[in-house]
């Protein structure tokens, strides 16, 4: 199986080989094209060419922020005398996101190959995969795949007889959502509590142990082999302008066939849900859709035909994020869901910024009261003010994520909130 060199015919990239049984085994993966193009990259490409191809490709970081990958790589200073590190962010914790898990457990060699190529471009000697602690089975699959890759001289000293050497280590987290934020991830990898750092300095300049560091998501790195084999222009021609390529969408909630689906960017939300996910469990239009993980503002039924691109979703008032689509049909209790999410953000706040530590806790307590039928009209104002005063006032984006469901609930479903208030206050 191979991905078409005609961009118009490409419908999947990262998941091209995902259904092949035993694709996690090196011999099977190689039969199906893994590492086929790697010798060409190591022997005939150089850093400038790879970074140029990545820039041309239009690939944007698939972890949520959507920052152009080639540009990120170009920020790494060279000849600093310090080592450069490559960290794969596999701390998949944004509620609703479960795409990276499938790459790691079903096609780990795709990620490893992408990391070797990225590491070669960046002059990396030591690379790490920071995987969330709960993904023990996935970490074991990765470790077996890495051991096979070492034995085949695809990792370690003088890879495939070239002068390039790279080590790759799987590092398990231990249950902290905030470690998905890249500077918190670095803190955690240094053996500390995962508290995000001020930026600047950005990790590209001062990251892991104050050395130049690139942090990329699993899906991002897994897209690199196809881009280098077929060229940046090939990738740029897939999907839509400014939203090049295909994207993995993790669809969950009230759909008949929840799961991971890779589609070209620009596919509509309706197409994805109706034609890939078997439609809604109840009714014909969604009550609300969270398009990019729980930290992104909700979309409504009127947005059902939005094309899944960074720009179109932003125009609709939200973010593509990690591509985690949580679907709520007419049976959803949006107030209860918001109460549950407010608990999540309060629990996961690292506590170093006061607006987030106090704000998420306050919101959780008020939401418990409101959802429990003990709220009053004034609580709606409290929630709105608390949410608005967290966003943009903290080191990382966790507080903004915590504000999103509150503001969405108040904006789109004020009557459902009022219906739960204490009778005496209505």
């Amino acid at each position, binding site marked *: 199986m191979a991905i078409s060199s005609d961009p118009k015919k490409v419908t999947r990239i990262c998941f091209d080989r995902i259904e092949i049984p035993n694709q996690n085994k090196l011999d099977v993966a190689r039969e199906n094209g893994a590492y086929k193009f790697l010798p060409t990259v190591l022997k005939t490409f150089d850093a400038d060419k790879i970074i140029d191809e990545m820039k041309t490709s239009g690939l944007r970081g698939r972890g949520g922020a959507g920052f152009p990958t080639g540009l990120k790589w170009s920020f790494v200073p060279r000849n600093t005398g310090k080592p450069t590190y490559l960290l794969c962010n596999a701390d*998949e914790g944004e*509620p609703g996101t479960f795409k990276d898990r499938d790459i790691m457990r079903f096609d780990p060699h795709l990620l490893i190959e992408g990391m070797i190529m990225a590491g070669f471009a960046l002059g990396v000697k030591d690379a790490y995969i920071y995987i969330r602690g709960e993904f*023990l089975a996935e970490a074991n699959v990765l470790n077996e795949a890495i051991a096979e890759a070492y034995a085949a001289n695809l990792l370690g000293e003088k890879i495939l007889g070239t002068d390039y050497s790279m080590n790759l280590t799987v590092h398990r987290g231990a249950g902290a959502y905030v470690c998905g934020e890249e500077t918190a991830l670095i803190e955690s990898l240094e053996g500390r509590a995962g508290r995000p750092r001020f930026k600047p300095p950005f990790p590209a300049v001062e990251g892991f142990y104050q050395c130049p560091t690139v942090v990329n998501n699993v899906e991002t790195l897994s897209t690199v082999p196809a881009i280098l084999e077929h060229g940046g222009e090939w990738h740029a021609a897939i999907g839509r302008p400014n939203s090049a390529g295909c994207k993995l969408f993790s669809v969950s909630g009230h759909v008949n066939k929840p799961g991971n689906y890779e589609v070209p960017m620009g596919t509509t939300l309706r197409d994805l849900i109706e034609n890939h996910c078997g439609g809604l469990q109840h009714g014909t239009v969604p009550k609300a859709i969270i398009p990019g993980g729980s930290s992104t503002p909700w979309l409504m039924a009127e947005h059902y035909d939005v094309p899944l691109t960074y720009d179109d979703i932003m125009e609709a008032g939200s973010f593509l994020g990690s591509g985690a689509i949580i679907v709520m049909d007419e049976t959803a209790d949006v107030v209860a869901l918001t109460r549950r999410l407010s608990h999540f953000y309060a629990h996961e706040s690292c506590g170093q910024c006061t607006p987030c530590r106090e704000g998420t806790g306050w919101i959780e307590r008020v939401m418990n009261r409101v959802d429990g039928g003990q709220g009053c009209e004034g609580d709606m104002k409290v929630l709105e003010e608390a949410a608005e005063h967290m966003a943009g006032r903290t080191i990382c984006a966790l507080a903004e994520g915590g504000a999103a469901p509150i503001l969405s609930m108040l904006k789109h479903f004020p009557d459902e909130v009022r219906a739960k208030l204490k009778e005496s206050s209505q």
Partner: protein
Amino acid sequence: MSAVENTSPQFSAERLDEIKALVARYPAARSALLPVLHMAQEDFGYLSMDVQKLVAETLDLHLMAVREVVTFYTMFREKPCGTYLLEVCTNAGCMLNGADDLVRHLCDKLDIKVGQTTPDGMFTVTEVECAGACAGAPVVQVNNVYHEKATAESMDALITQVRAGGDA
């Protein structure tokens, strides 16, 4: 064997070799703290203060550096739990697919509250944040093994099987 019995926890010789090899993979030993705590929890069941001291000594860190990490990450436990730890995800995707009912069912069935352990020490039930497997909602991790699309029936069967001496 030494004449004096040492009652404080010790890593086995194999574990110490493993830790030494692990430390060599990082720029500094401190980076091995999370993985070594995972190993310690696997070896000793939970991270008592004595175990945390052992980890601190093994990696040549201050005890406070270890404490900071143990208390920050939810997977590290300072108290023992049941032989079978049932961690039910109740975040968005699982909640929309019946996770709250499942938690209630498990607690009723085992006659405990969330966070408690059955008197025979067999089961602990907790709620956890998004497990990252929402297509399989609701998800229950049983000793870190994912059970997806869990139902009251499938959990009852698991409990019966374990109580009869089988594996989860």
